[in-house]
């Protein structure tokens, strides 16, 4: 069986599921979907102050790819701030091999070797699952 192509490596998943603006008129309608790798790119570059090649290396991707993800992340966050939209974090093309997920409904823990059709609980089919990290 061929090994799945290695994609991007996220060092740690975000500690939140999203951000919500407050003090606005009415509910914010649409939301901006921030991918895990975009969150990671922002964290490495603007929080840990790594340069792009260091950050790219850590995520196991090329520098141009890192630059593209980073740019996309900044635009999304700028859009959310300016248009008072919610930010929702979602799985992107991250490396999920070896990671455990927890189903918040039935509490089954599981791995996702082939997360092609989205990540759902293998026992109860719930989509309310959480990445809980490697091993």
């Amino acid at each position, binding site marked *: *069986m061929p*090994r*799945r192509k290695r994609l991007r490596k996220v060092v740690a998943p975000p500690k939140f599921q999203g951000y919500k603006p407050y003090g606005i008129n009415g509910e914010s309608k649409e939301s901006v979907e921030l991918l895990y790798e975009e969150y990671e790119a922002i964290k490495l570059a603007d929080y840990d102050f790594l340069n792009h090649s260091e950050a790219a290396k850590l995520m196991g991707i090329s520098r141009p790819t890192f630059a593209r993800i980073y740019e996309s992340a900044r635009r999304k966050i700028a859009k959310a701030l300016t248009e008072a939209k919610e930010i929702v974090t979602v799985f992107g093309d991250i490396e999920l*091999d*070896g990671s*455990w997920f927890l189903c918040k409904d039935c*509490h*089954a*823990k*599981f*791995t*996702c*070797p*082939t997360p092609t059709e989205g990540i759902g609980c*293998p*026992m*109860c089919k719930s989509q309310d699952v959480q990445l809980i990290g490697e*091993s």
Partner: protein
Amino acid sequence: MKTVITSTGNSLESEFDLRFGRAGWFCVYDEANGNYEFVKNMNAEDSNGAGIKVSEKMVELGVGKVISGDFGPKAKDVLDKFNIQMVILQNEGATVDSVLKKIK
């Protein structure tokens, strides 16, 4: 796809086994035709390396998913490598049948 549920015995009424490498039996359920069979774990008594041998057995059986109570790091390495999904349940005292019904 085939799914394995670790079992303490060789019938659907047997208790779900929380151990993987040292499980007594494996209930192999075939999604394609709805059949199941019980395969004895020949490595249950091994003093070491049971996790790896049993993982290799899963590969040999063509299993895509294993439901158990725990997986050691070595077993996990092998199962990860062969894209076999691991599911951990802490349903102590559940019967194999009750686990099987959830995935049917």
